[in-house]
């Protein structure tokens, strides 16, 4: 009676125990879900190991390549020359790094706690009991899937060669070299080419296989009975067939009978076909891949920049902008759908990608929404410009967007799409041409100033809190002796207005043209000065100094 009760209690206890373990892990899963730190650590590891654009990852990859090569060198050297204690210690460290990398990658592969939570919530929702076994299996399955992926198997096998007692494990040293595929992107591309062309390669190998088989059998039948023959076994025949079909032709085994020679001749021709076919497949695949490789390079280079301009469209306007950006040493990247334009850009030494600038993923790869601070829509097509503007504004609310509009109507649409500034080439020309007709000398002068063509610049100098300029009157600055001309002062609307000067309204700001000597400068004002570069920089330098440091 009592033993029966006990035997009933024990399973329930066990079930309880299992249940409480399950509950504990679910609670843990929720904790992980909520934990900021867990999220941060995972994000850091992801950047380090898997993010293709991260700078840290390229450092990590470089470190791993060195580690693999050094460890392989040691292992090879060790075959004939015993190494000491330190080499063993190094090997132990390498294996330690490999094992932790393997585990980290497995951890990064997916989020187990999310699966657990999902199962738990589904059970709660449906009012069903939580089945710990099913949940466990759901958690383990993706991990097993990861472990059976080729790269993961290579990672695992790369750990093995350091296990001394089994000498044949030394062979796995090769797997350590295969690990290099993971860290070098160009090698990875080679593997990808093979995968992508697997249908062609499969056809090719089927063809080669049957040719070799037929040749092997034929040469064996004709030659093995002949006097002075070198083809004694089927293995000899196969070896001869492979050496001949690949057009290597060592000449250690040669057919002696006329029938055998005929087979050889046919096989040589088949070999030429096979080789050229294989070469063309691989060359073609690489040619297609080259563009992608180059683009990846550009993405990686772009990732290192912090303040980037994306130039969409490399027509004449795009070229002018690119040259100017390059001259002022600003980082930029060019997108154009025309391959020739992209090649021209590359010849000029600019970063360029061929592709549709309306493609959101392409723009994201180029840093839109992250490090891109401005985007210029300069394509010939107004429709594209509107589309790019809209995409950019959605992905990045505070990016600076400058767009070209060929038609006047487009300007309004661009404003609706969220553009910061519109440039209309025809309007700019019209304005210039019309002004020039009226006052050629004056207009040339102003144009030189605005475009800095004559060495004279029109530049803003901001007044900041604590600057020497703050609370100075215009008359006290003595601009004339500094060889500067004050065009005017821009003041935010929020600051107190002055009425004794000619005032112009800008959007949200006032512009005081040629203010008299009595205007008091406030923090937030912008002085617009005309002068030579040297005088301007001198003034700017002095203006930014702290008030107390400048002698009155």
């Amino acid at each position, binding site marked *: 009676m009592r033993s029966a009760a006990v035997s009933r209690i024990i399973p329930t206890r066990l079930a309880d125990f299992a249940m409480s373990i399950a509950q504990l892990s679910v609670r843990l899963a929720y904790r992980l879900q909520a934990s900021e730190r867990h999220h941060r650590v995972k994000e850091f590891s992801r950047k380090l190991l898997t993010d293709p654009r991260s700078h840290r990852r390229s450092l990590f990859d470089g470190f791993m390549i060195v580690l693999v090569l050094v460890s392989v060198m040691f292992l090879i050297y060790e075959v004939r020359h015993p190494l000491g204690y330190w080499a063993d210690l190094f090997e132990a460290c390498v294996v330690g790094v490999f094992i932790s990398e393997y585990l980290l990658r497995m951890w990064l592969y997916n989020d187990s706690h999310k699966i657990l939570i999902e199962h738990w919530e589904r059970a709660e929702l449906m009012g069903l009991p939580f089945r710990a076994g099913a949940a466990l299996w759901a958690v383990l399955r993706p991990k097993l899937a990861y472990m059976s992926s080729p790269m993961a198997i290579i990672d695992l096998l790369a750990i093995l060669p350091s296990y001394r007692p089994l000498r044949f494990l030394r062979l796995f040293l090769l797997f350590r070299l295969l690990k290099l595929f993971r860290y070098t992107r160009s090698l990875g591309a080679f593997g990808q080419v093979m995968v992508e062309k697997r249908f062609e390669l499969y056809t090719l190998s089927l063809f080669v296989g049957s040719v070799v088989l037929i040749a092997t059998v034929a040469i064996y039948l004709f030659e093995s009975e002949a006097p002075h023959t070198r083809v004694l076994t089927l293995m000899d025949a196969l070896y001869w067939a492979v050496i001949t079909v690949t057009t290597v032709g060592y000449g250690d085994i040669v057919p002696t009978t006329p029938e055998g020679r005929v087979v050889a001749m046919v096989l040589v021709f088949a070999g030429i076909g096979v080789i050229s076919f294989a070469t063309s497949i691989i060359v073609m695949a690489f040619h297609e891949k080259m563009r992608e490789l180059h683009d990846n390079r550009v993405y990686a280079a772009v990732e290192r920049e912090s303040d980037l301009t994306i130039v969409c469209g490399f027509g004449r*306007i795009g*070229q*002018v*902008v690119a*040259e*100017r*950006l390059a001259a*002022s040493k600003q980082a930029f990247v060019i997108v154009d759908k025309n391959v020739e334009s992209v090649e021209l850009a590359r010849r000029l030494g600019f970063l360029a990608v061929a592709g549709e600038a309306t493609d959101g993923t392409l723009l994201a790869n180029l840093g839109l929404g992250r490090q891109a601070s401005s985007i210029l829509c300069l394509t010939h097509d107004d429709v594209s410009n509107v589309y790019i503007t809209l995409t950019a504004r959605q992905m990045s609310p505070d990016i*600076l967007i*400058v767009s*070209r509009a*060929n*038609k006047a109507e487009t300007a309004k649409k661009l404003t609706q799409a969220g553009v*910061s*500034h519109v*440039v209309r*080439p*025809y*309007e700019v*020309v*019209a304005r*210039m*041409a*019309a*002004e*020039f*007709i*009226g*006052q*050629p*000398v*004056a207009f*040339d*002068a*102003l144009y*030189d100033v*605005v*475009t800095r063509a*004559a060495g*004279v610049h*029109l530049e803003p100098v901001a007044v900041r809190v604590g600057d020497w300029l703050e609370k100075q009157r215009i008359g006290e600055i003595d601009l004339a002796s500094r*060889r*500067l*001309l*004050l*065009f*005017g002062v*821009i003041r935010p609307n929020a600051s107190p207005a002055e009425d004794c000067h*000619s005032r*112009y*309204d*800008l959007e949200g700001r006032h*512009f005081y*043209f*040629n203010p008299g000597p009595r205007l008091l400068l406030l923090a937030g004002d*912008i002085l*617009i000065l*005309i002068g*030579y570069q040297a*005088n301007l920089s001198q003034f700017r330098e002095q203006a930014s100094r702290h008030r107390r440091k400048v002698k009155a």
Partner: protein
Amino acid sequence: MAPKFALFGCNPLAIEVAWRLSMTRLPFIMLDRDTAKVEAARQEGLEAERIDYTDDDALRSVGIGSHIEGVFCLLGEDSENVFLAISARALAPALRIVAACRAPEAAAKLLAAGADKVVDPYEISGARVHELIERPEVVELMEHTVFGMQDLNIAEVTIPGGSWLHGVHLSELRRHMKQNVILLGVVDMERGKDLIFSTRGIDHNLDYDDVLVVIGPSREVEAFHAMIAGSTPPA
């Protein structure tokens, strides 16, 4: 009123220029060889006429060599514009010719053909786009004031014969300037077309026919004009 300016080409660029000119109330006429384009310009409400610009008599009949003061070469091809500039310059040496170019190497050819000013739409637009990234506040300011519709203009004032400014130094002129205008600089027409900026520190000796470049509201500019026209310095 007889048109003073002739716009060759009835394309979007020319229509844009036409709108600018009509805003400043300058009488002009649009001309093209292509009837469809002429019709399109008429649809926009602009005065347009079909002529063959390769024919000198046709050019003369429009008024080049007589009442036309300026010609805009805005045709679609650089070669057409070069041809037009050469023809117009031959007919009227004093004509003011402005041309738009498509390819950058055409600019030199247009100048050689007799154009006074060549504007490259792409060059200018590119420069503007770059300015907008680098110094948006300056571009915005110029847009709204000098280039825009507000009353702040750039003007050139030629020193007339008999003005008190003849033989006077630039610094002295500045002392007498009470108007709310900025003196950007002066162009000495005898020495070439380069502007001597007033900030440069060269105290230029003013002369008849020197051109002063000033910026200011139109009333002030007129007052400045009146001041320098007098034969004696203002009190």
